[in-house]
């Protein structure tokens, strides 16, 4: 179990804190055994393609707090993803009946002189400007490779400006080069929120934190029935609301990869219990998750009724659906915990999962609890998975694997990966809403989308016929892991 230290401005990166890795080939059972046995080691690559960085992930958690502004202390290019997230933010407002508004995002626009003489004055001026222009309830300052290497003392500047302006000005350290696991950025954002925004509880409430991205509100009915109020965090919560997430009765994880640090921090610092069982994907997974929820919220009997009703409602349908998918194969690429969840749902539906390219692996989460491990649950409930590749969006490995495994369907969870399925003529599905497949009904919702995708072969067949392939013939004939480990010249990933 990692210890949350709010005195430190920076969160410890996942490689160090959890022993997380980005390179592995083998089967899922081996990965789980090594993880739980503490013998997992990272394997670097001699060739690599661009991945993602912490600053993007930190920004995505901070940029949809309606009354906060975000300043990226960086050259202008680091803010390239801002309008994309703003689009998501605005669509989320429509879904939630919130007034239309755009996020307030700023770049300090670091230039060459800042890298030579330091950029703290530039940052100070930016914070002042933003405060006067926006009058936010808080300002988050995210850092960059440039500000990190130059050594700008962002912590001191934000502390001074907090005093001067009378609102929290909170540093979020998320330099891209610091961690090769981009989800460290989630931890950075949550560290900033817990450290700079969350206040000690005044009282306990009947609210339940749901640590999620910006997915659908599928927990409303369940929690209301149990007598609790859902609070979906962080997106669309105000600074005032975030101040009091310490008062909640529990925290739910939709995806441990996302929320591991926040769940653990709220429990360790403020005693908010985290639902530690891996999230409710697949029938058995949902049973256990609900039972844990019932235990923590003290609603055991009601939860048993919900489980019985869920089984009665979904299991007969599921039988029918399974027949439809009998003998079909699938390949999954996704972030860690949610990828494991998708694998569970696919196998629940009767798919043979031929392999997976999962972006990283956390051998343990911040709560130190083995029951949180969704991959272990996959292996336990449905058996081993061959061709389980830990691969941080290395499309060259993915294409090679897809060509070999030739699945009937390719499931992706992140942008930039889907075309490789479609270009090879494989029906490909990306679902943005990670809550879609949660719980009993989620299995059926997902089945519907999968059936639709499997049936729609015209598009991919035609696309494949007319697509180009940027990978050499040589490469496509090599072992997909040829650049992983082996005769290492240098450490690369």
């Amino acid at each position: 179990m990692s210890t949350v230290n709010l005195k430190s401005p920076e969160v410890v990166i996942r490689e160090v804190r959890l022993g997380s890795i980005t390179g592995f080939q083998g089967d899922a059972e081996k990965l789980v055994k090594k993880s739980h046995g503490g013998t997992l080691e990272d394997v670097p690559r001699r060739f690599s393609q661009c991945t993602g960085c912490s600053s993007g992930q930190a920004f995505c958690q901070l940029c949809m707090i309606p009354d906060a502004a975000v300043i990226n202390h960086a050259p202008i290019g680091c803010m390239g993803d801002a309008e994309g997230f703003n689009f998501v933010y605005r669509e989320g407002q429509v879904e939630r009946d919130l007034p239309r508004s755009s996020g307030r995002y700023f770049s300090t626009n670091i230039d060459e002189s800042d890298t030579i003489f330091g950029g703290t004055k530039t940052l100070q001026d930016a914070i002042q400007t933003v405060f006067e222009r926006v009058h936010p309830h808080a300002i988050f300052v995210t850092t960059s490779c440039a500000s990190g290497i130059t050594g700008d003392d962002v912590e001191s500047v934000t502390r001074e400006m907090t005093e001067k302006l009378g609102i929290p000005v909170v540093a979020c350290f998320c330099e891209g080069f610091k961690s090769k696991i981009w989800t460290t950025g989630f931890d950075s954002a949550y560290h900033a929120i817990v450290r700079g925004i969350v206040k000690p509880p005044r009282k306990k409430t009947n609210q339940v934190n749901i640590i999620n991205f910006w997915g659908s509100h599928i927990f409303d009915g369940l929690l209301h029935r149990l007598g609790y109020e859902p609070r979906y965090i962080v997106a669309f919560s105000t600074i005032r609301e975030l101040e009091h997430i310490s008062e909640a009765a529990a925290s739910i994880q939709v995806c441990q990869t996302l929320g591991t640090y926040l769940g653990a921090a709220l429990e360790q610092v403020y005693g908010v219990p985290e639902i530690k069982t891996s999230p409710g994907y697949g029938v058995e997974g949902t049973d256990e998750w609900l039972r844990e929820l019932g235990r923590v919220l003290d609603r055991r009997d009601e939860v048993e009724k919900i489980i019985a009703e869920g089984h009665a409602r979904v299991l007969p349908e599921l039988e029918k659906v399974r027949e439809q998918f009998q003998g079909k194969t699938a390949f999954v690429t996704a972030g860690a915990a949610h990828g494991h969840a998708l694998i569970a749902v696919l196998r629940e539906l009767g798919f043979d999962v031929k392999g997976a390219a999962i972006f990283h692996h956390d051998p343990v989460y911040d709560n130190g609890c083995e029951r949180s491990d969704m991959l272990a649950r996959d292996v336990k409930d449905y058996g081993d998975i061959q061709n389980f590749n830990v691969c941080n969006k290395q499309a060259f490995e993915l294409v090679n694997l897809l060509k070999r495994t030739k699945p009937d369907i390719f499931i992706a969870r992140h942008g930039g990966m889907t075309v490789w399925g479609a270009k090879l003529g494989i029906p490909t599905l990306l679902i943005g809403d990670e809550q879609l497949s949660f719980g009993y009904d989620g299995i059926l919702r997902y089945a519907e989308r999968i059936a639709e995708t499997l049936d729609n072969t015209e598009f991919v067949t035609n696309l494949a016929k007319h697509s180009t392939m940027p990978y050499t013939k040589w490469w496509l004939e090599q072992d997909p892991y040829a650049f992983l480990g082996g005769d290492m010249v240098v450490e690369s990933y």
Partner: protein
Amino acid sequence: MSKVIEQPRYSCALGAEQTVVAIRRAVPVLHSGPGCCNKITSLIGQGEAYAGGSTIPCTNSNERDVVFGGVDKLRSVVKGALQVIDADLYVILTGCTASIVGDDIDSVAQEFRSAGKPVVCAETGGFKTNNYRSHETVVNAVIDQYVDAHRAEGGVQKGLVNVFATVPYQDPYWNGNLAELKRVLDGIGLKANILFGQESGGLPEWKNIPNAEFNIVASSWVGLGIAEHLKKKYGTPYLHFPYLPVGGLETSRFLRQVAEFGKLDKKRAEDFIGREERKFYSFLERMADFLLEFRYGLPRRFYTILDASYAVGFAKYLVNELGILPARQFVVDNTPEEFRDEVRGEFAHLSDRRSAPVEFETDGGVIQQKIREDENKTRALILGSGWDRDLAKDLNADLLILSVPVEYRLVLNCGYAGYNGGLRVIEDLYDRVLGTYR
């Protein structure tokens, strides 16, 4: 005075990776942090293309590379790229990490070139400048380190021209714009190398760059650094047309200047211009009654939040050919000081009798505030980006997205340059206007 930028509308120096992606069968190899490419393509990407987006090789610099240098890793990744990615040109570009640390990328590129591999490099550390300027750096690097050694045989060819008119992907309509410029230049008797995109001949065209009779820069300022470089290096003269030519008036003006500069067959050029103008103006005539009669309101004044080339090109077109008058004009590309007077000069003569003041401002928040403070008496048109959607809604204005981030449009081969581009402006603009009526 803060130099903060709200709502970025361009990228950093490394954004010029997209310049490489726009060259057929060329691939950038980034020696940068892990997230750079993702952020750049979020703003100025348009799908994976051949080997862009997630396909781009990258060293994904980590702490160790920053402390000890990352040259060995770069060498390993370039070696892998040559084996794995099926391309004809590999362009190493640095991000902030490698540029601050000072990794010697020249030596790495040189090593590969010595072994006969098509590998070039350019310093594009994000903090150094923006992607407008570094577009020039990257093009010049390819010329110096690749083109020069592979120059096509035959020497200078009569009628062969290189066109530098747009920054691929930073201009969302680059592909369509270049295709139309090629069409009209070929039409007056030239053979135009456009170097980027579907209508270009790819690297064989690049190898022919030194053989051009002259070069054409059709842009406010980006591209002048390339044309100057080619003038020094190969003695190629160049013509500077200082904005994007849009519509009948400006495209004809552009072509006549080119014809004169290149001493082309005047009759052939005039025949082509005449044919194109007849087509163009027959459509303009066809829609004139709509412009004059539509009773529920059309935009009567326009705000510009664009880079210099687009700003001038559209302002001239809207004023002279569509009768829409200029409101406040903002140029957002951080135009270097030495080129600002020329841009001001163009705005001072939008037509024979009309001028408009122009402001150079990179901070979208400031621009929007100023527009909001304006008297908003008549229906306005905003020429801007995806960032300006709320502004347009709040003012009941029409928004034509011409600048990145595009977000609310999907762009394939649409272009606004030339005669065809001018017509496309009319269709797209009034499609949006009419779409507001129920």
